[in-house]
């Protein structure tokens, strides 16, 4: 079994999905084969990059003319790749001590049953940092 890149099945609240983080650096959280009540509703989903425009560049950063960083997959203009962090990592530019050693350290799955005031939910959360 690899540290990253495996497909992990989870289910709850009527959903059945696989999640995957393909690598420590340079990937993101992917959701595959999402079934709701036994019916396929999504093949694959993810948010592999982020475009970060600066309306007030700081001392020329990011550079003109776009004043924008592209972070995540295929980073450009000074952008950085995403790094999977341990679930409890602090909100800071974390050193390697906070990097997830395996994909399951980065991802948290919670299932909430339906209540009187709302539907049930299956939530898949992961923490990444730029850099």
């Amino acid at each position, binding site marked *: 079994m690899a540290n990253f890149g495996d497909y992990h099945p989870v289910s709850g609240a009527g959903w059945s999905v696989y999640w995957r983080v393909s*690598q420590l650096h340079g990937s993101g959280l992917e959701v595959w084969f999402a079934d709701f009540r036994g019916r396929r509703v999504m093949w694959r989903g993810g948010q592999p990059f982020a475009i970060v425009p600066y309306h007030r560049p700081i001392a020329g950063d990011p550079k003109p003319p776009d004043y924008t960083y592209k972070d995540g997959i295929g*980073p450009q203009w*000074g952008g950085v790749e995403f790094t999977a962090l341990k679930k409890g990592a602090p909100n800071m530019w974390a050193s390697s001590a906070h990097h997830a050693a395996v994909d399951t350290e980065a991802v948290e799955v919670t299932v909430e049953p339906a209540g009187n005031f709302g539907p049930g939910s299956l939530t898949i959360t992961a923490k990444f940092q730029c850099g």
Partner: protein
Amino acid sequence: MPSVTSAFARRLKQVLKPLSRSEAARAVKAAIQYLEPELVRDGTSRFRVLGAELAVTRPKSREVIPRRQIEVLVIDYLNRRHVRIVVEGARVVEARTLDSQPALGREEIAEATRLAAAVPELRKLARQRGVFVSSYAPGQRQPGQRRVGLYYLSTERKGRAAVLAAVEVDLVDQRVLAVRLPGQGSTTLIEGGTHGELR
């Protein structure tokens, strides 16, 4: 309680089972054997395998189960190209030069750090306590290029990280292109290097 998993997803289990080390090693070997004639130029080659992972391609029909394939990414520095090889069993079924830049490998960042250590100020900085290195993408990376930007960072008491220095390294030509050192506002080019923009 009825199952929430579709019959299709249940049939996927065999396709999606974790990649074993031997399976990955076999795929890498097949990919290298396939590429070998192209990797060698004037009797030398310089390439790096970034890794092997399961590749699932969406079939044209909803009813068809995807095949279990393994994707191997090869950075061919000598020929300035990045190649995606797809292996099924022991057979190469796809070989394609990528237009995009694959994520930097850990070994590549380590090599860039070693090359950056040729700058005495950076070598000294890297030895300081609490200093660590984090990579970034300098400028607009074109296909075939392999440039690595490195920040030298220090963690401050409040948990914020301060950028102490930055360097841009070209892994194709194996040299430092530009550097920004502590107390130095602007970027210094090394031996006429052309660089993107140090962040």
